[in-house]
């Protein structure tokens, strides 16, 4: 994608129709003519017809648009940014997070914090990880900056609870180990681009 394309932030099909609104009446006579014309062409009844037609469609044509939300749900985009998910490595099942702290650093609402320590295997271990969802603005920077594709945004948007702490525990965000095979890669910000391979410069290795 070239820079020009990237900078074009106009979304949608960009196919627009222009309405013919006619001439604006200028003299009193014009205005009178307009009133007469509109009255006798029964424009008012067109409006009435449209609404009664839609009512008929809705009631009998099965064209009702209401989604009964808690019982019915619309599918959400894979790029939707709701409560974060912590992904695991598919091979080992170990969580992907390496505790680099980039998400903590980049977070513009300053809501991520983590504690790390030196563990028995001489690795950096994340001992605590929290997101303050009272502050999180779901901007997606953390997912974008994560070098391990470990923190991503999930689809969990029904966030009403008595305590915010309830959905900010690392274990709660982590993919359950028994559902590892259902783990989805995230397509949103920070995901690997389809042409990533082309953009990488190869490093020579001696083995």
């Amino acid at each position, binding site marked *: 994608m070239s820079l020009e394309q990237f900078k074009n932030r106009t979304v949608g099909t960009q196919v627009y129709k222009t309405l013919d609104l006619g001439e604006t009446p200028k003299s009193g006579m014009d205005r009178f003519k307009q009133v007469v014309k509109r009255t006798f062409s029964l424009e008012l009844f067109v409006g009435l017809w449209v609404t009664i037609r839609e009512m008929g469609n809705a009631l009998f044509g099965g064209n009702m648009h209401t989604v009964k939300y808690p019982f019915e749900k619309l599918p959400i985009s894979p790029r939707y940014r709701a409560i974060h998910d912590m992904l695991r490595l598919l091979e080992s099942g170990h969580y992907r997070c390496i505790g680099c702290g980039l998400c903590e650093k980049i977070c513009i609402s300053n809501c991520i914090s983590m504690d790390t320590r030196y563990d028995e295997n001489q690795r950096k271990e994340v001992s*605590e990880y929290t997101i303050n969802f009272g502050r999180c603005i779901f901007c997606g920077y953390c997912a974008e900056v994560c070098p391990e594709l470990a923190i991503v945004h999930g689809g969990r948007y029904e966030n009403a609870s008595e305590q915010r702490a309830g959905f900010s525990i690392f274990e709660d965000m982590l993919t359950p180990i028994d559902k590892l095979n259902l783990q989805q890669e995230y397509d949103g910000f920070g995901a690997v681009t389809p042409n990533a391979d082309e953009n990488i410069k190869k490093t020579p290795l001696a083995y």
Partner: protein
Amino acid sequence: MSEVETLDNMISITINGTEFRAKEGEFILNAARANDVFIPAICYLTRCSPTLACRICLVEADGKQVYACNAKVKEGMSVTTDTPNILEERRAIMEVYDVNHPLQCGVCDQSGECELQNYTLELGIDSQSYMIPDTKRETANWSSILHYDAGLCIVCERCTTVCKDMIGDSAITTVKRGGAVLSKDYKDTMPKDAYSMWNKLQKSVIAPSSGTGETNCSDCGECIAVCPVGALVSRDFVYSTNAWDLTRIPAVSAHSSDGSQIYYEVKPTSIADRTPKIYRVTNEWSYSTLDGSARFGYDFENAGVSKDKEAFAKAIEAFGKAETIRFNSMITNEEAMMLQTLKEEKGIKLYNPEVRAFQKFLSYYNDASGNSLYTTDTDAIMKNSDFVISVGMAMRNDSPAMKYAFNNVQKMNKGAGLYFHPVGDTLIPTFGKSIESFVHKAGLEEASLYLILDLFADAEKLPSAVKDYIASFKREEKETIKEKVIKTVTETVVNADSGEEEEVSKKVTTMEDKEITVTRNGLIDILGNDSSKFDAIFEKMMKKKANFSLMIGEDFYYHKKASNLAKLIALIEATTSIKVVMTPPKSNALGVALICDLDDEATGYTIGYNEIGDFRLSALGDGDLDIPAFNQQEGTMISISKRVLPTNAGLPYGGYELNDIMSELVSSLDNTIDWTPLLPTAKGFKEVSFDSLPNSYTNEGVDNRGYRLSVTSVDVELPVVDKFDESDVLEGEIAYRCNPARQFNDFTDKANQIFETFSLYASPDKAESLGDKVEVVFANGTIELDVVADEKIKGDIVEVPDFKSAKDVYSLFGESRYQTVTIRKV
């Protein structure tokens, strides 16, 4: 460092077409840095010798490629830092550094402060041309604090350089790595310097020089500070936080009198506990060097304190009936000023055994020399001096700044040194080749000064009495030496052919004894050295030496004849070119000595300020009223370099402080730091508010922190000095009041990363003979201590620490640092 730059040694050079002024004899790199010109350099450390490991500081000087860290500037020199060839070399060098460097920047403790990362980005390394099989390099713990990740190491040798040239321990060195051999193809295809740098890099890795895998050093952690990558980290800090999360709070090291510049690096303790915690201490390692107490003795704060009104009321009551306040040198100038105000207004005595002797000694010195304070400091010694003499201090333990200066002079200024001390030390002679140490008997400190007078004094200036006294030690000795003599011998030989006798003369070489007369200096023998060899050695030491310094230690302040010692020092200064520096015993001893009128003894109801007493104000959390610890306080303190340095509160404090008590007792100011401009100008302080004190170094390395005390000097007559008395010498079992390195007070003891215990320290032989635990019997008390062997001690004198105020070791020793004791095994 001398404050005044002399203009006559400035020359002009051209760097990349712009003309700059530079000091003559300086390295190109330093001249560039002083003028804010950037030349990349990884392995070079200011104040240390060039290592030539990285070769990235390559520049072209007058058409020749040189290393900027190693080539000195010359008048009119033209330097170019970016010729195509140099840029090619630099790129190749950086690419080589990136070969096989683990891509674990995400977890690396250097977290963004990495010089490898910075230079890789700076030089725009976006692809790699070289490769070699990697060698597995194991992570190791070198000591209780040092953690080394060999995989991350780029073998720039900064750690080994600083350990050798600055610290003096030489505890780490480069060893063979056993890596793959570089392909010969590279020799032809890659830039020359990059190839040789890689060749060396591929072969080496850093390891403790003892060969045991343990560093066995003073654990100062300076190697951690200088490491450009995350290879060297303190064990406590490994993976605990990212550097960018830490808030830097500039402060001054609280424990030794070095007054080292430090940063407390602060962050909340954990997710659950949001109270700030100091994660580590860092420093401007290019310009200042820390000792172990400064770097690791930071977590001594008085935590979780709130305003205890009841205790405060009791404290006010206690101050009402107090006769004496006992305190130590762990106090800011402002608080010392408050105590002095209390003395003036309420007549409360001030008792400070740590500082009193030093204060007296300063006044003796002042009377004898006319100087209000000693004349040089450790920074200036490092910069200029090439001959240092240390008297009266266990340098390794008492004053890190002195140790670093003594060592640095040997390494950087091609210097020489004399070390006088009753306790033998195995480390100090290793600082350089031209070091002579005198392990004399305790009590002969005056003799050492007389010897210095003899060696250095301008004979014409010396009073005749002194001259005669010194001459009285000289003795003429007949000495038999073997000499080669060539003689012509004439013999009468019968010629075999002719049967005639004829005279034949031939030359014969024989060795003959010859008696000559030599002058022997008895003082040298008295001081435990060999007078027969010393003259020759000293002659060698004095070659090309111009700048002499004398370091005075704490032994002199606690000496029976302190007054005479001070006079002798004054005499030395008056008759030689030697400049003098004295060690304030501990942290802010100099400030206390200048501000407070101290009393000789404590009487009646005593308030202990971080000390023992009937009512205890304590920052250790165990007193009757809590007060803030040094890392929770704002204020100023005076370093050994006579600078009034501002320090800031690294951590919050919620309780009462001395200023609150002052407000109750006598009227006081709003904040402790409001006292800063009120410090006595008569003693050299300036009327400057705390907030306007600067706190920085320039790129040249000029110390701009706080302000320098003004030192006055008046002309006085030469002091009349007493002779020394050999009968003062202590015999038998001797204990020396001396802390292990890194321990200074209760606060260093409280710090988690300072492990040295409150024990009896002795040389390995002595320790073996003493067993595990002993009772040391003094004239006025006993103390029971474990015995710890210190490989760096030589001789039979044992060291008893004083860093726990509760043990009141000062009372045991009384007026001297040396005491004859009886040691019983327990």
